[in-house]
């Protein structure tokens, strides 16, 4: 399906229109249970996101990059992934984490300012969040190389924003992937902004998907507010990766509904009208309309889902806040496999200092 949509011709894969109507022949045909699961993940994502913002305002969580508007991209992509696939995230990936089963308490714990929240639970193939923009991309390619070397039939997914495509690491990573035909799926969440810098300032290419031309593998633009389009493209790209057909670049065309982070004020650089225009294309709304048409959604169902999401989120907050603070040992132990004498001395001194009643 991917090769049917040529970014050089301005084509974009979309399954659902804004009324939730599925284009004939493009619907990935998921079972009802899976459709509902996707919806539930999207709602959990939005709920958990709103909660993080609230916690931040209350001083209970630090600077936070909200995901609102990206639920279709994140949940659509992660829902198509398999348990053995690997994920190399960026910093705006809440729906990925929720879908892939990363404990939300850990995720909150991280954004509350504790490294322990970055410790992926054993058995989950999720690398830690990369804050330096684009830097995770070559790493994902290396994981792809390793998968190939080990003859694992898995795919390696990495996400990043439109801004990241301007970094050298985007280029070096994708170029490597092309040369070695690694099992990578590169997903750009083109949300039209890198903080205040609009997409047009990021590159003169008409689409981000067409950048794949530079690397000799397919690129496709999908409607990033259409969870089924993201799912369909991801499923195909993942299958191609796993079966040795090489990497794919997916551009998910979407919009950052909120501020860049809680330190940002997007009103300084974009209009209310523009934001409102995108509110209409809300990915959750669109998918709800689709479910409604399929008889999978009604008010009662919505209520259950909302309640369950709220409960899920509150539990995670409670858990995260109950976690113990980092100890000096936590801070010093993981710099090296074995602590060097200088660090031992510094740790001892810190503990003596704290022992004097300070802190």
């Amino acid at each position, binding site marked *: 399906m991917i090769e049917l949509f040529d970014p050089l011709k301005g084509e974009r894969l979309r399954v659902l229109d804004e009324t939730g109507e599925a284009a004939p022949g493009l619907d990935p045909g998921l079972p009802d249970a899976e459709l509902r699961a996707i919806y539930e993940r999207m709602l959990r994502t939005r709920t958990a996101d709103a909660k993080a913002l609230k916690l931040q305002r209350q001083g209970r969580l*630090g*600077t936070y990059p909200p995901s609102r508007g990206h639920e279709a991209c994140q949940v659509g992509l992660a829902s198509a992934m398999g348990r053995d696939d690997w994920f190399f995230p960026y910093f705006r990936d809440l729906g990925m984490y929720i879908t892939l089963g990363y404990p939300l308490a850990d995720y909150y714990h*991280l954004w*509350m*300012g*504790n*490294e322990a929240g970055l410790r992926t639970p054993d058995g989950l193939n999720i690398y830690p969040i990369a*804050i*330096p*923009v*684009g830097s995770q991309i070559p790493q994902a390619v290396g994981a792809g190389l390793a998968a190939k070397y080990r003859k694992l039939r898995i795919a390696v997914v990495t996400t990043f924003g439109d*801004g*990241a495509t*301007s*970094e*050298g*690491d985007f280029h070096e990573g994708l170029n490597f992937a092309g040369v070695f035909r690694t099992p990578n799926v590169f997903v750009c969440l083109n949300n039209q902004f*890198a*903080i*205040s*810098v609009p997409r047009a*300032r*990021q*590159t003169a290419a008409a689409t981000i998907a067409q950048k794949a031309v530079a690397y000799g593998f397919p690129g496709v633009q999908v409607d990033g507010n259409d969870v089924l389009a993201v799912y369909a493209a991801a499923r195909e790209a993942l299958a191609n990766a796993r079966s040795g057909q090489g990497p794919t670049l997916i551009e998910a065309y979407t919009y950052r509904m909120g501020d860049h982070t809680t*330190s*940002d004020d997007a009103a*300084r*650089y974009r209009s209310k009208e523009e934001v409102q225009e995108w509110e209409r294309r809300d990915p959750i709304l669109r998918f709800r309309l689709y479910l409604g048409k399929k008889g999978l959604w009604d008010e009662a169902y919505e209520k259950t889902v909302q309640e369950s999401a709220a409960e899920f989120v509150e539990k995670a907050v409670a858990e995260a806040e109950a976690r113990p*603070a*980092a100890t*000096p040992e*936590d*801070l*010093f132990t993981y*710099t090296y496999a074995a602590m060097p004498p*200088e*660090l031992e001395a*510094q740790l001892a001194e*810190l503990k003596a*200092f*704290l022992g004097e009643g*300070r*802190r």
Partner: protein
Amino acid sequence: MIMTMVQAINQALAQEMERDDRIIVLGQDVGRDGGVFRTTEGLFDRFGPERVMDTPLSESAIVGASIGMTALGLRPVPEVQFMGFIYPAFNQIVSHVARLRNRTRGRFTVPLTIRTPYGAGVKALEHHSESTEALFCQIPGLTVVVPSSPYDAKGLLIASLRSDDPVIFLEPTKLYRAEKQEVPEEPYEVPLRRAAVVREGKDLTIIAWGAMIPVARQAAAAAQAEGIGAEIVDLRTLSPMDRETFVASVRKTGRALVVHEAPKTCGLGAEIAATIGESALLSLDAPVLRVTGQDITVPLPKSEDLYYPGPERILRAIRRLMEY
């Protein structure tokens, strides 16, 4: 006018841009948004998009393009959004910015000023609390400047913008809005390569810079209460370093303490301690001590205080020095 460091920096930029149309500000979000810390606020409206350029998210190109601008006589002021994100531009800085004057025997100079917020203490995200100034101090050809007050920020930035050498101008985020100070309206220079004795004392010398100056002052005040007179040298230009000023102070006091946020090992404190050992060994009544960040990655906000030198840690070291 009474102003914050952010305002002082903003004023320095505006006044110099007014005076010198070779100055171009470029970087991520420096334009319409006015910079994530608002240091470039208003410049876009005043000087237009050709002189206040929002760029792609591309540190190497931001610095690399700035170099190229100097070839045609401009004086660019690239902003790197946080010091933790300067590394993608490291090759441009080390292999080109620092060397071009020398490798062309003066035909091409690189009069640019790379501005970047730096340092811990504001409970920021990972990679947003870096203070790796020593990386740059070891590269011949670079000038590294750190202000510790609004007054110095304006004067040092103006001096940097007017300098014919490339300057890495590090702005302590912790001080951006910490303190307001009277700052003269007219442009002025605080000379580069000159440290300042910002507090006099006879018993020991504290050498520090940037956000550590207010912390050192607190410690010095506490020491005073114990009858110990601490002199504080604000290094201001970290490279090339004004060794004379702090060596003279240590010759007088006989004791020295370096305070910096960066980890201890191979931090700038090492060079300062080595210099004192070389030049003032016989005046030393005690070893040169260093109170610094721990030799670990700056922790996330919840544990930042365990990393960061505070007044009590400095006071402890002062006492230890005096008891030696």
